[in-house]
């Protein structure tokens, strides 16, 4: 007896799940135990209509369209806490959350704040909406001058991928200037792309704009191929993550390090250059894309411990359990949206924790963090004496 195959149009849930299995380690979605750890550890899981665990349940129940009708996935800051804690090691952040945001963007369901950042990234190559021509303006006055590869046309050892916020944000430009000072002190042969550099695109990708990410990566790839250098150093963990883990599959493959790795390798050259004591108790905030996503925990701490007069203390959430500053996955461009939903800021939570550690300096290594944490400090009375410094700034202060 032959049973005719019943024709079946796959539902949205089925198609979505089939595509999810194709993500790296995507088959692990079959192994979800529904333990709920992901939803519990998610910093905003308590207010999502469908936190990650329920999203997976929704997919299995063929009801994912209900998830798509809500907007709380925009609370996801792509911090990898869910993926880190999952006992089945399911790629929740890279797979489920990012793919859901991609579907929302394709459907045109984008919060307006995020829309601006995405349009700016497309048009100007940076989410801040600044002129590409001004991307190297922060280098004015630095001696010896910062090499801009398109202008100075000479090979360098290190291509420094400066990134959006260190290039344009007045607070984070101080971090870029500190790094330039350190590179100069160490006699590093380095150069930047200046006006030719585009956003690394990683946060746009994690906010669901895959096409925009690819466009930016291709532009950066074309520019990289024009110049002679041996490796890339990034100021930004997100740029590091993109160039290390995402660009190669688009055919853009270079050795890359975050600046903390690069400097930790040169710690013996750095130490004799320290001239002044910092005299502070410092706690270090592990950025999501340096720590949890890329397992770089040791180098930033080595650098801090090398500084004269610095006592390093840990916060309750540290290393792989570090808390997100709230800027990832598009959070940087969804402050109003997230405030409306949550009436709390993740950055305030982190600043309160830094206070309990007894530190007077909160050290960071990601460009999203100085403005986010400094803004949080302004809203917490007891935090007035806490200052936020990028590791590069602390090193530069000691030189």
């Amino acid at each position: 007896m032959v049973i005719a195959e019943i024709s079946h149009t796959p539902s949205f849930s089925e198609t979505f799940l089939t595509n999810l299995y194709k993500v790296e380690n995507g088959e692990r979605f079959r192994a979800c135990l529904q333990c709920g750890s992901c939803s519990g550890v998610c910093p905003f899981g308590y207010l999502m209509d469908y936190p990650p665990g329920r999203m997976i349940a929704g997919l299995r129940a063929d009801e994912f369209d209900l998830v798509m009708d809500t907007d709380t996935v925009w609370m996801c800051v792509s911090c990898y806490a869910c993926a880190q804690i999952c006992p089945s090691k399911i790629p929740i952040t890279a797979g489920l959350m990012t793919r859901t945001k991609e579907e929302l963007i394709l459907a045109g369901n984008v919060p307006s704040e995020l829309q601006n950042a995405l349009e700016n990234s497309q048009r100007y190559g940076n989410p801040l909406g600044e002129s590409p021509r001004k991307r190297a303006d922060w280098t004015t006055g630095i001696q010896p001058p910062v090499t801009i590869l398109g202008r100075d046309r000479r090979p360098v050892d290190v291509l420094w991928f400066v990134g959006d916020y260190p290039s344009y944000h007045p607070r984070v430009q101080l971090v870029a200037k500190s790094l330039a000072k350190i590179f100069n002190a160490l006699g590093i042969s380095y150069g930047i792309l200046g006006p030719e550099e585009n956003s690394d695109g990683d946060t746009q990708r994690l906010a669901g704009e895959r096409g925009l990410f690819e466009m930016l990566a291709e532009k950066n790839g074309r520019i990289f191929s024009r110049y002679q250098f041996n490796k890339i150093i990034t100021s930004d963990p997100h740029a590091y993550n993109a160039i290390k883990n995402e660009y190669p599959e688009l055919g853009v493959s270079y050795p890359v390090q975050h600046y903390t790795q690069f400097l930790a390798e040169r710690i013996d050259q750095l130490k004799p250059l320290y001239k002044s004591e910092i005299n502070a108790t410092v706690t270090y905030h592990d950025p999501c894309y340096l720590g949890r996503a890329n397992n770089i925990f040791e180098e930033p701490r080595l650098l801090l411990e090398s500084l004269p007069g610095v006592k390093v203390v840990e916060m309750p959430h540290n290393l792989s359990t570090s808390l997100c500053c709230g800027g990832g996955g598009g959070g940087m461009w969804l402050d109003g949206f997230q405030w409306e939903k949550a009436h709390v800021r993740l950055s305030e939570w982190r600043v309160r924790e830094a206070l309990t550690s007894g530190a007077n300096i909160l050290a960071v290594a990601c460009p999203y963090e100085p403005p986010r944490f400094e803004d949080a400090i302004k809203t917490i009375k007891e935090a007035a004496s806490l200052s936020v410094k990028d590791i590069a700034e602390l090193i530069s202060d000691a030189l």
Partner: protein
Amino acid sequence: MKIVVPVKLIPDLVDELTIDATGAALDTTWLRLIINEFDDHAIEQAIILKERSGGHVTVISPNVEGVEDMLFTASAKGADKLVKLNGNFDGSVNNHALARGLLPLVQELQPDLVLVGVQAHNDMDGTLGALLAEYLHVPYVGYVSGVSVTSNQAIIRKEYPGGLVAEIEIALPAVLGIQASEQPPRYVAISKVRQMMKTVSIDEYEIPVFETHGGATVSRMYQPEVAEKATMISGDVDETANKLIDIFKEIGVL
């Protein structure tokens, strides 16, 4: 419902504007062009109308740098036909010339509705819609912020100062000057725009005789001059703050 949306690209204010050697026009060396914001709203309103009651949307733009990206984006939003207008668009083209240039093509398309941005910041003129309506012998309503259509008429929403709203009924065909679409212009994923670049073609239309007369002549273009009573404070942040404090003390507010 056939809708035609003529749009133009104007200087992007992301870079500071500079004036060229003639002293009467912008230096275009570094000038980037961007869609006129009101025209972006006109496209959005056209797509909203199409989604609500069906229709066919044609977007037309002078063929200048950046026109293709802009047209493909309009297509990804839902525009059905894209046309770039060929003519000599060097320098700023006045609205009289543009209206005459657009006329034969718009007539050929036989639209029920022509939606234009009510004005553009590069000329602060706002006459394109009215001129087109005059040449087409159809009604014009400007400063529109909402439209609904039936087969042969449109109800137009207009917001007046003081919190008043009017609904105006007009017979179609008509030209409308859009101040704001009913919803902000939507975002389209880059992957969709790239898809359009591969699958959609842009028509070209040659303006038969492009006469550029009719506009006002700019005799002088300049940066605002410092007024006599203004004191410009210079220096770094600390110096500026100290000078401000001195001034506040001097005039007795501190």
